[in-house]
């Protein structure tokens, strides 16, 4: 087993950061924790990397217990925290050598593991980490987390604030690492990245809303979703929200995603209603659910319970 989490809870004063969370990650699996800021993702990472002790529950990483075997875990995992935590006044090469030495290895010994990533920053290896761009810092942090060939890799929001191009490149790197047999637990607030994981847990307010493969999460969505468009998105949102049988209305790029409470909903009725409200260029047609649709559906029913 890569990671096993059983009924883990952790509170800070009155705030329940993580509430009775359980899940398992198989060896070699790329598992995503998907949720917004404040969902409890970082607390969970800190518990699993032995930096924080849970109030309740058990967890193992690479079959080591996070409390009893914390020393073994520290040797066998790589952790890239959300906040850049390398030495700003050491160069790229010095940082990497430092982390290799701490773990009793050398850059040469595990070079094949980091090669793909390291060659991209190698031309700047004499530059101090503090002077690197966001994308380069991210690549260096990943190299440092990998240099001792960990069995399990923890990545806490590696792509937050990163532009779409660099995000895409980063996920391609993760795929290649996974092919080398490393178990990866990665968190992200970007729902579109969820599709790139083997399985995902949707998490909000310290609770897991669902654990599934990205394909099944979308397939299990129970409502029919319609793409609705008109010339005036703002008033379209307002008018859709006051449609009597409305279930949910969310802006989705150039369309608004609309779901209805009734199973016998007739799109033509909605078109007529919108035309009466003076909308022009009205379009209503069926579309497929995305992970974000599912997340919002689960999150809003979770809140109202």
């Amino acid at each position, binding site marked *: 087993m890569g990671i096993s989490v059983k009924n883990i809870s952790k509170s800070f004063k009155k705030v329940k950061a993580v509430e009775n969370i359980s899940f398992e990650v198989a060896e070699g699996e790329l598992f995503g924790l998907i*949720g*917004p*800021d*404040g*969902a409890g993702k970082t607390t969970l990472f800190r518990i699993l990397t032995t930096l924080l002790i849970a109030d309740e529950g058990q967890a193992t990483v690479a079959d080591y217990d996070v409390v009893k075997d914390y020393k073994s875990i520290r040797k066998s995992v790589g952790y890239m925290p959300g906040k850049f935590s390398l030495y700003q006044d050491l160069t790229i090469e010095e940082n990497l050598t430092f982390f290799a030495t701490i773990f009793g290895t050398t850059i040469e010994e595990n070079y094949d593991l980091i090669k793909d990533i390291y060659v991209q920053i190698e031309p700047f290896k004499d530059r101090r980490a503090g002077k690197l*761009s*966001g*994308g380069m810092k991210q690549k260096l942090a990943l190299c440092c987390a990998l240099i001792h060939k960990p069995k399990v890799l923890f990545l806490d*929001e590696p792509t*937050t*604030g*990163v*532009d*779409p*191009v*660099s995000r*895409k490149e980063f996920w391609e790197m993760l795929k290649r690492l996974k092919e080398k047999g490393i178990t990866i637990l990665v968190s992200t*607030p*970007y*729902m*579109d990245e969820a599709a790139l994981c083997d399985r995902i847990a949707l998490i*909000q307010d310290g609770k897991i809303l669902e654990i599934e493969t990205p394909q099944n999460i979308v397939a299990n969505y129970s409502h029919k979703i319609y793409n609705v468009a008109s010339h005036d*998105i*703002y008033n379209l*949102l307002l008018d859709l929200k006051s449609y009597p049988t409305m279930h949910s209305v*969310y*802006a*989705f*790029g*150039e369309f608004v995603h609309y779901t209805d409470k009734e199973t016998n909903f007739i799109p033509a009725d909605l078109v007529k209603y919108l035309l009466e409200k003076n909308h022009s260029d009205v379009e209503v047609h069926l579309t497929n659910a995305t992970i*974000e649709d599912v*997340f*919002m559906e689960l*999150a*809003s029913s979770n809140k109202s319970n």
Partner: protein
Amino acid sequence: MEREKIIEVKDLTKSFGDFTAVKSITFDVYKGEIFGFLGANGAGKTTAMKMLIGISTPTSGSATVGGFNVFTQADLVKRNIGYMSQKFSMYDDLTIKENITFFGGIYGLSRKQIKEKIKQVLVELDLEQVANNLVGSLPLGWKQKLAFSVALLHEPKIVFLDEPTGGVDPITRRQFWELIYAEANKGTTIFVTTHYMDEAEYCNRVSIMVDGTIEALDTPKNLKEQFNVDSMNAVFLKLARNIE
């Protein structure tokens, strides 16, 4: 009909030593428009925005914001715009009321105006019950919505939003955009940066910066047609990938 220009930028350039971060960019923003300002990390977005909000003097070129020259009237620019960023918006250890009072004061509102604004903001955002709670205790999404209202306290004609929705949950992200729409509907110009490409679709027009220059500027619909793709994400990837 000639639309009123509220931001006019011509050949605006900023260099740091021998590195040119912004290379002679030219564009206009119209009154009441939601203008998306996109670009990869390091493309020069932040540098360009800093010049437009009057906190960085351009190396060359010209720019007026709300009729004020960013070279010679930087203070007037600052006084007449609203600004919020993801990194800093309000003081965590002041209450909601105290933050509104503080920023109202900074923007030169009278005591009476501040009192009215506090009431208005609390009602609009449904925060009356927590008015005396510390801002630090609010969930991120609420904080960002409040920060947006605070940036609008002095009723500026233009508001600059620097990645206002980073890390915010998807429902709150959409509520935030509804606030943006409502404000634009009143005639306020919105200048916004984001890394969420679905949000780029919500803008009236979008510019994409690559390597210090504006590589594309049009409505999302026209950009998608121009690049023959079906999403802004694909437009972005095509543009930003082509540079070397």
